[in-house]
């Protein structure tokens, strides 16, 4: 697998607004009494693979629909590539490619015809100039549809439609690609192919991606920056590595005898800082506390088999951010 995750850490926080290509400020959407999105302010920078995380119904798709002009925001503003993107202003959304809420294509047309007829919609002459037959074939090949390009889309499986949806989002030449649950319905190989395609396009062409998903593993493998949505609110946002670093870090200690281990831990830390887990104990302290803990245990005559630092996964982070949120 390619290891090209971009922007793993923000190199210069002071320049954070310098290369923002997509941002929302106080974005809100209400459906009657239901507030689907509340005061969401997200920032996507040039070259990001930005992961929008959240449970079903968290407001991810509604947010992206507003960004794409499919829904009218109740409040807040959207800016795309430096232009204010109000509802009903298509030109402001030039440069966006999108695949949202499942594959959308015309079943009566073939995959190639869908690309040929949909790609020119609203595209500049310059963009279409580089999107000839060869480019179309190449794109179909990249998403794994070259062999079925002449088949009508209504005969496609869900996975094939999904691939076509991604191809449509990439045609003719967007600067920002919004993918809403892009791996839904794909087999494991398809998931890997799409992940590698995103990483490659990001690395080679510098395309910015906004990927929404509830599949934490996918986001963890793909994205450099994430935003976590919960109950319509953006509860956290930032470089994935920074967020993970902020998470609760623990040491797993395998040592005997247990009573002596407990005595040492009680002496060093508050009672709620450690707990027995299986054959060992889990101590909630910073990873840099490992040498001191090891010395204390050995000094107390404890036989230490292992002290393993445990960094939080994205899942841990996600649970921590969403459990306490309203």
């Amino acid at each position: 697998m390619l290891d090209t995750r971009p922007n793993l850490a923000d190199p210069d926080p002071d320049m954070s607004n310098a290369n923002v290509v997509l941002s929302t400020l106080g974005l809100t959407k209400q459906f009657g009494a239901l507030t689907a999105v509340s005061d969401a302010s997200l920032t996507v920078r040039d070259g990001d693979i930005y992961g929008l995380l959240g449970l079903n119904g968290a407001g991810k798709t509604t947010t992206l629909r507003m960004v794409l002009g499919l829904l009218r925001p109740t409040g807040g503003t959207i800016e795309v590539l430096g232009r204010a993107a109000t509802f009903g202003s298509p030109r402001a959304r030039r440069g966006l490619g999108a695949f949202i809420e499942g594959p959308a294509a015309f079943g009566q047309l073939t995959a190639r015809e869908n690309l040929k007829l949909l790609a020119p919609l609203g595209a500049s002459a310059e963009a279409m100039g580089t999107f000839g037959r060869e480019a179309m074939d190449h794109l179909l090949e990249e998403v794994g549809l070259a062999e079925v390009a002449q088949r009508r889309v209504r005969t496609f499986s869900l996975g094939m439609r999904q691939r076509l949806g991604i191809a449509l989002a990439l045609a003719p030449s967007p600067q920002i690609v919004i993918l809403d649950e892009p791996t839904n319905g794909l087999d494991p190989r398809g998931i890997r192919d799409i992940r590698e395609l995103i990483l490659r396009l990001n690395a080679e062409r510098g395309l910015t991606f906004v990927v929404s998903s509830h599949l934490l593993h996918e986001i963890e493998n793909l994205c450099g920056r994430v935003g976590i949505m919960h109950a319509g609110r953006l509860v956290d946002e930032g470089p994935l590595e920074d967020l993970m670093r902020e998470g609760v870090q623990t040491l797993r200690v395998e040592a005997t005898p247990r009573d002596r281990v407990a005595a040492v831990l009680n002496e060093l830390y508050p009672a709620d800082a450690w707990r027995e887990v299986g054959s060992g104990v889990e101590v909630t302290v910073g990873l840099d506390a490992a040498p001191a803990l090891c010395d204390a245990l050995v000094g107390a005559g404890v036989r230490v088999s292992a002290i393993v630092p445990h960094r939080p996964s994205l899942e841990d982070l996600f649970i921590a951010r969403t459990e306490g949120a309203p």
Partner: protein
Amino acid sequence: MSGLFALIRLDAALLMRRRLPRWIAGTTVFAAVVATLFSGVGDGEGYQAVAAAARLIAATLVGLTSVLGAVAISGDAASGALRAVMVRPVGRPAVVLAHAITCAAFSVALYCVCVSIAWITARYAFGFSDVMYRSSLGVFPIQGLEEEAMNTLQLRLLLLALPALAIPPLIALCISAVTDDAATAVVLALMVTLGPLLFGLITDETIAWLFTERALHPLNSLAELAKGVQLHQDVVSDAAYTWQSVWQPGCWALACVAVSCTLFRSREVLA
């Protein structure tokens, strides 16, 4: 390539591929042939057969093309395909305009094809000859319109019905612009477009500015003339009559497109 042209190209491709337009075309052509062959006219009375067929074609088109207009946007919205268009940077008025142009062009083209088929069928099945005016007693026919004059008049009256036949799909498009429910859109569109026809049939009243009247009046006049009923020929040959057959449907078309654009402009794409 301009957005509107690209949208028209997409809509035209979909018209060619979808079953509904094919069914509409097939049904109308069938109606044209059947109406011509079973018009009950004799040798040399082909004009009557053409007039009968044209009236049936017009009535069929009013109903069926309104179905086409009704599903133009709502059908795509219901299937989710509308998203494929709307996530692209295209103007909403352009989306509506493209649908309006393709639906109206389809209706007009289909009318032309069907009338041509009816004419050819009548030509070979019955032939055309001079129309004899009938006396008030209907017994002693007198020389009326010569074949050449009747041919000109027939073409003129058939063409005058054309602009109004572009209106039913445009009216239906207004409904399609506000709902994701294609079935509801179809029912409402049929009520709105066939309503005036049924109203006219039941009450025998005519409302001159209605699009159905503008479509059927020239064809009814043709039928009367073909039967040898003496009409005020100068009325239907008058430039004012021609102008009326153009500007009134033109106003209808502009109003329908404006209403559709306004309604679709504020519509959210939920499906």
